[in-house]
């Protein structure tokens, strides 16, 4: 493979003709945060960071990088968990966070057109203030929408509403050679050839650079109620989920959580969780237009939970009641992170009926190999977040135990007919597990697609399917 060129002073002088010099960070001007993402221990500084403000700038930068064989790494808010935004070949990093505008709310087509650097929390509050709803709800609200599209982020509402891909109607992308392309659009249906838009979604910046997205909106449900359901054991809690799904009830979210993770979050947030009577909980959310309508949905679910041994059903029916519960749930990742020296994660997804098998396996695993492991996740869609904690282990021991734990968990996920990643992506660090889990023919197709989109391999090299 041809070696990549780095950005030199001479390149900088040219690039400053495309992008204001003050939005170009070169050498020592590059802040430490650009060398890594949220979780992975990989640290590499790009040789140049460009804080772009327009599609035109991205196009010119890409054309130049393509011509001069400089690697390009797209970066949003840097909240990724798998190293997709680490500039492995240094080169040029394109930061989208200044492209953070809402471009158009089209109420006749129920679409919102946005730039990629808009934060998810900004997007949500913008549409909700206007009575619309953008359902995908990943835990990390300070991620950019571009990042969400790149990983096909899911989140807590997937059980009822689906994932990011289900809400992207159209994309504007810049190809590796600088060509600007519109994919999809405001159309509701589209059977016009291969769906290139869907191929870009979840490609983690390896196929094209997203510069605009047309998102599908729904009318905002007027009311919602969360049920916090304490169970004597986690097994009982998770065992109840397939029965809830089978009952044709339609919660927007079914999360599971354990006492020990709640305690971490209490300490992290400095505020108490509204209940402490159980070791395990399910957290469900229902939405609708009236409280009566919602109560008719959750009555059956409540009865199923009680039949399965739930201690009670606690009802969070107002903003002040549901906020502390969801705030705690939203803080789990950061709270676990704060409770240890270093950690790595597994984001597997298994069929919903097998979640219990996987969680039991993880409980056993931590005893078998003697390492602290904490988990929580989306019981309703089978996507689990499992964190392996280093604590005070030596470098060598940490690597050994972490690899062993990972290997066993991914093997178990395969056995249960699951997938390597539910929503965080493959990026840099999950590639070996993707290789083990997918048939060679799939990987060959993926590499072929990458070759067609990016013949010079400048776009986020060494990620996803490039081993």
């Amino acid at each position, binding site marked *: 493979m041809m070696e990549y060129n780095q950005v030199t002073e001479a390149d900088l002088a040219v690039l400053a003709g495309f992008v204001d010099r003050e939005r170009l960070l070169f050498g020592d001007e590059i802040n430490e945060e650009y060398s890594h993402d949220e979780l992975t221990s990989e640290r590499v500084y790009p040789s140049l960071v460009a804080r772009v403000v327009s599609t035109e700038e991205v196009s010119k930068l890409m054309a130049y990088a393509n011509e001069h064989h400089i690697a390009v790494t797209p970066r949003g808010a840097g909240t990724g968990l798998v190293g997709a935004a680490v500039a492995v070949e240094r080169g040029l990093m394109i930061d989208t966070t200044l492209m953070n505008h809402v471009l158009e709310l089209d109420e006749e087509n129920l679409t919102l057109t946005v730039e990629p650097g808009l934060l998810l929390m900004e997007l949500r509050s913008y549409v909700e203030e206007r009575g619309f709803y953008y359902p995908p709800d990943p835990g990390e609200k300070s991620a950019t929408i571009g990042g969400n599209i790149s990983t096909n982020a899911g989140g807590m509402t997937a059980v009822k509403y689906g994932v990011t891909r289900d809400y992207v109607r159209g994309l504007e992308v810049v190809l590796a050679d600088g060509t600007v392309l519109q994919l999809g659009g405001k159309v509701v249906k589209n059977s016009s050839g291969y769906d290139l838009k869907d191929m870009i979604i979840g490609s983690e910046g390896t196929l094209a650079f997203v510069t605009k997205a047309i998102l599908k909106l729904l009318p905002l449900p007027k009311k919602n109620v969360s*049920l*916090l359901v304490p169970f004597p054991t986690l097994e009982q809690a998770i065992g109840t989920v397939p029965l809830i799904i089978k009952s044709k009830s339609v919660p927007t979210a079914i999360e599971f959580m354990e006492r020990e993770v709640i305690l971490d979050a209490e300490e992290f947030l400095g*505020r*108490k*969780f*509204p*209940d402490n009577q159980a070791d395990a909980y399910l957290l469900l959310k229902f939405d609708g237009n*009236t409280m009566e309508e919602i109560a008719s949905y959750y009555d059956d679910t*409540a009865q199923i939970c*009680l039949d399965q041994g739930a201690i*009670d*059903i*606690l*009802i*969070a*029916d*107002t903003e*002040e*009641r549901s906020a*502390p*519960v969801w705030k705690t749930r939203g803080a789990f990742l950061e709270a676990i992170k704060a409770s240890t020296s270093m950690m790595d994660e597994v984001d597997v997804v298994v069929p919903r009926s097998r979640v219990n098998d996987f969680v039991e396996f993880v409980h056993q695993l931590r005893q078998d190999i003697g390492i602290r492991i904490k988990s929580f996740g989306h019981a309703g869609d089978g996507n689990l977040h499992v964190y392996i904690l280093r604590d005070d282990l030596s470098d060598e021991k940490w690597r050994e135990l972490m690899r062993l734990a990972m290997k066993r968990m991914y093997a178990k996920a395969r056995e249960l007919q699951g997938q390597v990643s539910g929503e965080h992506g493959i990026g840099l660090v999950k590639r070996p597990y993707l290789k083990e889990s997918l048939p060679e023919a799939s990987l060959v197709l993926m590499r072929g697609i990458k070759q067609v989109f990016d013949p010079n391999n400048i776009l986020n090299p060494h990620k996803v399917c490039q081993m």
Partner: protein
Amino acid sequence: MNILVCIKQVPGSNKVEVDPVTGVLKRNSADAKLNPYDLYALETGLRLREQYGGTVDVLTMGPPQAKAILYEAFAMGADRGALITDRKFGGADVLATSYTLSQGIKRFGAFDLILCGLQTTDGDTAQVGPELSEQLDIPCVCNVRQIKEVQDKSIHVVMEMSEDMEDLQVAFPCLLTVQKDIYEPRLPSYKKAKATCERPIETYTLTDMDDTDEKHYGLSGSPTQVQRIFPPEVHKAQEKWQGDGQELAERLYQLLKQQKFIV
């Protein structure tokens, strides 16, 4: 210990609409809820009962549909509920409200401790609690941030003042208004809600009171004259600080200290 918690039904949203012609708040009973501040008072009562025994009863004044919040309180663990309701009580200001409550309380029972939320989200006066204690002629402590200990004849509390904290020992019977966050309020229980959905509620109208003189209640018992009601201006205060790290850290520390996030 017999505890009474005074609670109120308030509009479900902070964005209350005001009728531009009459200046009256548009109350929509379909979108009403238990005053968020009262959740802390109720939680305080329930915690004290768990620790020291006794009963926690709830009382509200409002239209018949305000019963809903009494049942909500039952679902959180309250024992008995009473509703003070009469068209003649409508339009009451702080004075008439607290007088009506004091009359209702005399009917409802004898209490060692009366707990109120700091204020309501619709009236926002924070005066009904202290004025009720005047009507009942019992001592009152407002802004209670912590309950340290309950003794036979008194309670040891911490009151938050604007600049500092004050430790107080108050003799029973007394009234406390509690701060938000004194405890994290529990969530209503589905099981308790099902078990208490038919629990009888005592209802008091004007004719049930010791004082049946209409002039002391509602609009006619209210010396407050409302000229105009209007939604407050919304301020989203933002400050931008610039300076070196040391200077900004010191400033941030002082602010956090002033706001009592750190001691």
